[in-house]
């Protein structure tokens, strides 16, 4: 310290305008936290409000008290919904639709992405771009033509699709397949070419290369695509409102709105409870798969 002081004695005192890297980093962190807190606040307030309201009785909700506090907590909304056969039907329909859509989406988009990313064939690049472009078409534009298509289909074949829960299993993949294929193309393309060449020389067929090398290596991407497909089909609102009407065919988002709003009477307690219960499955899936989602499995495949 003393020697430093001696050296610096003659040097002019200078105010440091730009800090060291660690100072810059500290400021960057402060700003990040500032915006993260705002973001977290904005996204957490609605679910907290939902939770608070779901624990109130209808009387307390309509009373002029502090809406951010529960004075007489009750689980009557939860009991009412979980014992209502209607709600359980919505839940079952939603689960069936989502699981089937995820399965169908993965069965189509994983091989499609593999073919588009790895098998060079005439027009593969154009098809890949085309797939992405279909994703850009808004779903609000599609429901009328789709409705017409299903009506005509039913006239021709006698198979009724409209107002059946499984119509959604046909419709949702039009939203999920393009995006999931696109995600998987990206993941597969990031796998070094030598890896499939090594597999092919080792004697693997294209199918074995896909199932034994690509799928395990691209697992984080696969999980990301699965989460996306599940979330889209679980939370989709417009299509079920259009294509299904009978209460035994409704999925959760449409069911809650159709049955819990009667005319101009809003059953707020149960609506909030239904929304919370509806948000639970995606939340649980995210919580379990987050680690996989983040983990990079390709490390060490080639020179690291």
């Amino acid at each position, binding site marked *: 310290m003393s020697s430093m002081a001696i050296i610096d004695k003659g040097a002019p005192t200078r105010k440091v305008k730009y800090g060291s890297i660690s100072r810059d980093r500290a400021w960057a962190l402060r700003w990040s936290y500032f915006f993260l807190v705002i973001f977290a606040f904005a996204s957490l307030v609605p679910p907290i409000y939902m939770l608070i309201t779901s624990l109130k009785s209808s009387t307390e909700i309509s009373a002029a008290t502090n809406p951010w506090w529960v004075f007489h907590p009750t689980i009557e909304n939860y009991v009412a919904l979980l014992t209502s056969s209607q709600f359980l039907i919505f839940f079952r329909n939603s689960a069936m639709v989502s699981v089937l859509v995820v399965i169908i989406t993965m069965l189509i988009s994983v091989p499609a992405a593999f073919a588009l990313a790895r098998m060079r064939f005439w027009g593969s690049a154009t098809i890949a771009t085309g797939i992405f472009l279909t994703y850009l078409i808004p779903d609000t534009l599609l429901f009328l033509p789709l409705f017409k298509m299903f009506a005509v289909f039913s006239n021709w074949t006698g198979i009724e699709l409209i107002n059946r829960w499984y119509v959604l299993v046909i419709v949702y993949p039009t939203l999920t397949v393009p995006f999931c294929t696109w995600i998987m193309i990206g993941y597969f393309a990031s796998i*070094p070419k030598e890896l499939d060449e*090594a597999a092919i*020389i*080792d004697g*693997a067929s294209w199918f074995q290369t896909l199932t034994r090398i690509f799928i395990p290596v691209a697992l984080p991407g696969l999980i990301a695509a699965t989460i996306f497909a599940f979330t889209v089909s679980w939370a989709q609102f417009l299509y079920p409102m259009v294509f299904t009407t009978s209460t035994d065919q409704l999925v959760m988002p449409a069911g809650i709105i159709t049955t819990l709003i009667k005319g101009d009477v809003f059953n707020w307690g149960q609506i909030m409870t239904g929304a919370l219960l509806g948000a639970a499955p995606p939340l649980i899936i995210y919580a379990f798969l987050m680690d996989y989602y983040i983990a990079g499995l390709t490390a*060490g*495949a*080639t020179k690291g």
Partner: protein
Amino acid sequence: MADVTLRKVVKRYDDVEAVRGIDLDIPDHEFVVLVGPSGCGKSTTLRMIAGLEDISDGDIMIGGDIVNDVPPKDRDIAMVFQNYALYPHMTVAENMSFGLRLKHYPKAEIKQRVTEAARMLDITELIDRKPKQLSGGQRQRVAMGRAIVRNPKVFLFDEPLSNLDAKLRVQMRIEIKKVHQKVRTTTVYVTHDQVEAMTLADRVVVMNHGRIEQVGPPSELYHRPATRFVASFIGSPAMNFVPCRIEDIGGTLHVRVSDTLAFPLPASRAARYNSVSRDTKLLLGLRPEHVADARSNSGPGFETFEATPDVIEPMGMETFVYFPLAGGQICGRVNPAVDARAGAPLRLAVDLNHMHLLNEETGTVI
């Protein structure tokens, strides 16, 4: 084990010819190295042997069978890649046994082969690790192990040491040579590093612009290059080329490199070059070790001259001197005991017994 034969093999990408009609015979057990600058077609040739690239024209035979349309998995080959290409989600043992498992070998045999290969490559204790837990050298050993356990007809190496640091590269080079001496599998090895080529190969194939320039054992390529390209590509520092002419002075054949400098040729060389037209533009090719200090190099065929080096590179066991001659830069190798200094005149001797004479126009060695 098998021999590999290439007959007029051509590879075209749209209208670019990457490989222009290659003929090559690789007998059983031989270690052949394809060497050349990047873009010379060496990797493409290797990939065509592997079956990873289609052949535009010609035939490739492995063990006497034409394999042009045989898929890679049925060619009974194993390949080691530059970036290792290990399966990241499998352990070392699983990586090595993947090919055998696909072919449904009995478990006991798989285990025995993997253990044996691991012992040979000294990776027994790494067998349960994942690739990301290994160092570069260890990964390359695993990649070699994966090739060895298959016991294939042919080993293909695609620049396997390029990703390793210099020290490890030398070590792995010895390792590869040892493995080949043990298993004796026919090997085709691609590299751009001529030192690797010289040290590993039974025969070196020098390629340039999609063609084979010369095939031969390392020493033959070094001492009797067929073309200017081979002469300059093999050897480090590279061979010197000085524009020259053949002249008769006083009844002896001389090689004239400048207005003031002409060396009389030794009898054996004079006989060989006597028929060369005196008007032909020629190049005198001299390796740095044949341009040495005059003090310790004398005898028949040695001719001395004075030069002023402008750069000195002391390497410890030898010293390289660079000096201008006939408009070019010449590299000589002198004894480190010689007091060579930049800017100070130095007495040098050229060893014309080892000279090469090239036709400047065609680039061929006369």
